[in-house]
């Protein structure tokens, strides 16, 4: 235990959130400095990401030209990698909203140094997600038909379809996440405006800062808006992945139609999202020298959340299996036996080992506190979650009710290139974010430091405990 002795906050007795007794000015400098002096390392990452983005552009270009046949879809597996990737990216986005909104409602002050980057991650993940339903339609140029706009055909969208609910859910999610992120950015954009050395920067930051001047009358409405947005975003994040799960669960297909899908998908989304947050922040905090703000305790808390949500996912796996047996329904029972021992057994066991087994390492404090271990396990988490969506989608489709319909599904090179390209889009956007915007919510971090309390020092040392 002595090896993990944490610095304690003198007022609350809890682990201090900002280490090294930084002043407000030092916090500002620590976060703003990397923006003002980009490094060669940034260029390296940016160029790699842009090349991957190029792969995406080529893949989509070829897709629009030739049609969806370039992918590996067949009958009966008419939903392949496109929907797997869609659910994968939307799921990743959920962690950002959880950190911003849910942890805020639970007064978890440690969220303040990670929420900006994770909210950005959410927006970029949702952009990547929205890509797939857009391009996988046979005629993406008429995708606006999904919107309830009066038209010359006299038709309206089918509001009884989960695919349409997705349109509303994911676009609402994107809009609200963007608004929430932007509202949080306003005070920090003002900080960047006030520090800007060049006119271009001053005007650019200043335009988006809306003239923010830190007025307490403004902070009053601002904090209320933030609280309300957090309160709204919480049911939103639950509803979005629930509606995504409805895509599968409202069907009659064994392996898809099961009532626990909504919370199971949400737990899995948070699980994968936190994995991605760790993948991004473990290197980021090192390269931008932000270890005093994104402390090892922050990383440990995220590891615990990964452990909890991983166990929830494991619980859902268990329930599905048990009830499939309990139901006595031979189709249900076959669906699950097929997952574990059929043609895609390798995908299934990858999923189980990455999602259920690897997070168990987080029971050990030494693992939770090792940035390298956290990084490696976070990669496994995301591999596992991609495979989970793959297993759900493909195994239920490829062997459904009628054996004469069965067929094996393989991705083509274009399926793979589109997935890789989507990572290119994600990392390109993230590189741009890191280059131009403060990756830590400055105003929020300052507000949770002990010296931010107007009554700091009034009551002496207080209790020292943990």
């Amino acid at each position, binding site marked *: 235990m002595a090896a993990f002795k944490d610095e304690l906050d003198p007022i*609350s*007795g809890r682990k201090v959130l900002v280490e090294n007794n930084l002043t407000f000015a030092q916090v500002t400098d620590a976060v703003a400095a990397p923006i003002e002096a980009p490094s060669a390392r940034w260029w390296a990452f940016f160029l790699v990401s842009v090349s991957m983005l190029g792969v995406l552009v080529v893949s989509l270009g070829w897709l629009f030209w030739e049609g969806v046949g370039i992918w590996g879809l067949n009958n009966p597996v008419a939903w392949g990698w496109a929907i797997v990737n869609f659910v994968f990216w939307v799921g990743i986005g959920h962690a950002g909203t959880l950190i911003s909104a849910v942890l805020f409602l639970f007064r978890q002050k440690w969220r303040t140094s990670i929420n900006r980057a994770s909210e950005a991650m959410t927006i970029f993940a949702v952009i990547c997600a929205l890509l797939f339903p857009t391009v996988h339609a046979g005629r993406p140029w008429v995708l606006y038909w999904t919107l309830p706009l009066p038209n010359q055909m006299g038709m309206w969208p089918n509001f009884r379809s989960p695919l349409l609910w997705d349109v509303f859910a994911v676009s609402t999610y994107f809009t609200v996440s963007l608004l929430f992120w932007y509202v949080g950015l306003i005070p920090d954009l003002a900080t960047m405006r006030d520090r800007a050395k060049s006119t271009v920067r001053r005007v650019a930051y200043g335009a988006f800062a809306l003239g923010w001047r830190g007025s307490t009358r403004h902070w009053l409405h601002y904090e209320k808006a933030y609280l309300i947005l957090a309160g709204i975003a919480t049911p939103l994040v639950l509803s979005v992945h*629930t509606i995504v799960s409805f895509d599968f669960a409202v069907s009659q297909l064994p392996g898809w139609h099961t*009532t626990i899908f909504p919370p199971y998908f949400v737990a899995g989304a948070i699980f994968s999202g936190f994995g991605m947050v760790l993948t991004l922040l473990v290197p980021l905090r090192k390269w931008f020298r932000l270890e005093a703000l994104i402390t090892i305790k922050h990383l440990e808390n995220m590891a615990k959340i990964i452990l909890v949500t991983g166990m929830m996912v494991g619980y859902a796996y268990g329930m599905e299996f048990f009830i499939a047996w309990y139901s006595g329904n031979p189709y249900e029972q076959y669906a699950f036996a097929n997952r574990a021992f059929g043609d895609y057994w390798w995908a299934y066991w990858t999923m189980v080992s990455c999602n259920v087994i690897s997070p168990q390492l987080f029971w050990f404090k030494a693992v939770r506190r090792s940035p390298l271990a956290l990084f490696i396990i976070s990669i496994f988490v995301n591999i596992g979650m991609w495979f989970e969506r793959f297993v759900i989608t493909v195994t239920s489709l490829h062997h459904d009710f009628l054996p004469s319909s069965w067929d094996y599904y393989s991705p083509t090179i274009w399926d793979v290139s589109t997935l890789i390209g989507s990572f290119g889009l994600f990392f390109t956007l993230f590189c741009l974010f890191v280059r131009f915007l403060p990756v830590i919510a400055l105003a929020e971090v300052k507000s949770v430091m002990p010296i931010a309390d107007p009554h700091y020092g009034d*009551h002496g040392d207080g209790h020292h405990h943990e």
Partner: protein
Amino acid sequence: MGSHGAIEPSKDQIWLKEGSLWRKLPLIGGVLGLAGLAGAFSQMGADKQHFWYSYLTALAVFLCFALGGLFFTIIQHVTRAGWSIVVRRLAENAMITLPVLCVLALPVVFMGSHELYEWTHAEVVANDPMLSAKKGYLDEGFWTIRMIAYFVIWSFLAIRFYSLSTSQDDAAPDAAISKAHSMRWLSAPAVLLFALSMTFFAFDAMMSLDPHWFSTMFGVYYFVGIAVSAHAFLALVSALLRRSGYLNGVVTAEHDHDLGKMMFGFTVFYSYIAFSQYFLIWYANIPEETRWFAYRIEGDFLYLTALLAIGRFPLPFFYLLPRAIKRSSGALILMASWILIMEVIDMFWVVQPVLAHHHAKESGAAMAIHVGAVDFLCLLGVGGIFLAAFGWALGRKAMIPVKDPRIAESLAHENF
């Protein structure tokens, strides 16, 4: 915020006074409980099945409240929460009723199972391929062992957390901190045990009443009822204690606000879970699954379903939305009581339709709700014993964990 030179609550705020009505709760509860049980048992002759269904309903309700105390306790430890410590002892007192309630549940296991569960009848199973397929699980011997296992797990967890917390009251500061650490350390595996035991209890005791039906969400459904009832119970009890002159300045509007937020949040979560379970089954429209809900919108049960739909979501949702309401203990007393009553109705709604279906099939009439004296007597009986055990625990020790390392943080708690 923060722990300053400790606010020490005075003894008369955190200990029940001699001669107070609260101190008589074990006696009152015990008398009502025994009278209720005796009355209910005496009704057994008239309609044995009805008795057992009512008894199971009452057990499901009060186990829900007791498990709520357990859930609240272990969750506060796992999340290292600071705000809730002043109400945690009340949850622990609810939790320690578990061993007693488990004893009360034994008659269901050893005497009532044949009246309740059609899969316990060998000839029914033999003629039914679906039930025969489940014989490995829905087997009386295995079922009995499982039920005992749940009771053992719950009693063990309840007793362990209760004794660690109450012994902490009299411990030296270092020992107190180490007990707090033990409770935190134990809480993570406890959550796992709780989740699994509660899920399978729900399957075994309630879902198997209709053994052809199944839902992977069912365990979660029982859980949400537990979660929302836990916070409602704490809001109600702490408000009533304050009106009796206890816990003033200890449990404040700040804590009410948080309990209110939790009641609100779990109400939304309940609606989400209940709706999801219903909606997916409605949408796919597979008869094997829809039968369960079909029973509950037939005849009289339609009104009960409508009552639940309104009483478990829009009513608590809009009521608990304003900040001022959540901070008023009087307002919370009303809604907390309502939520607890809704839990009773919910358990009735889950358990009773199978019985009503049997009666309807026999008489050829529509599904009717048969509420008789036995229902109230069972609730009185089990409820009385629950209150007696709760009252015993309440009077035994201080009403807050006085030596918890974070008690000062909890006492000084300030909300948004």
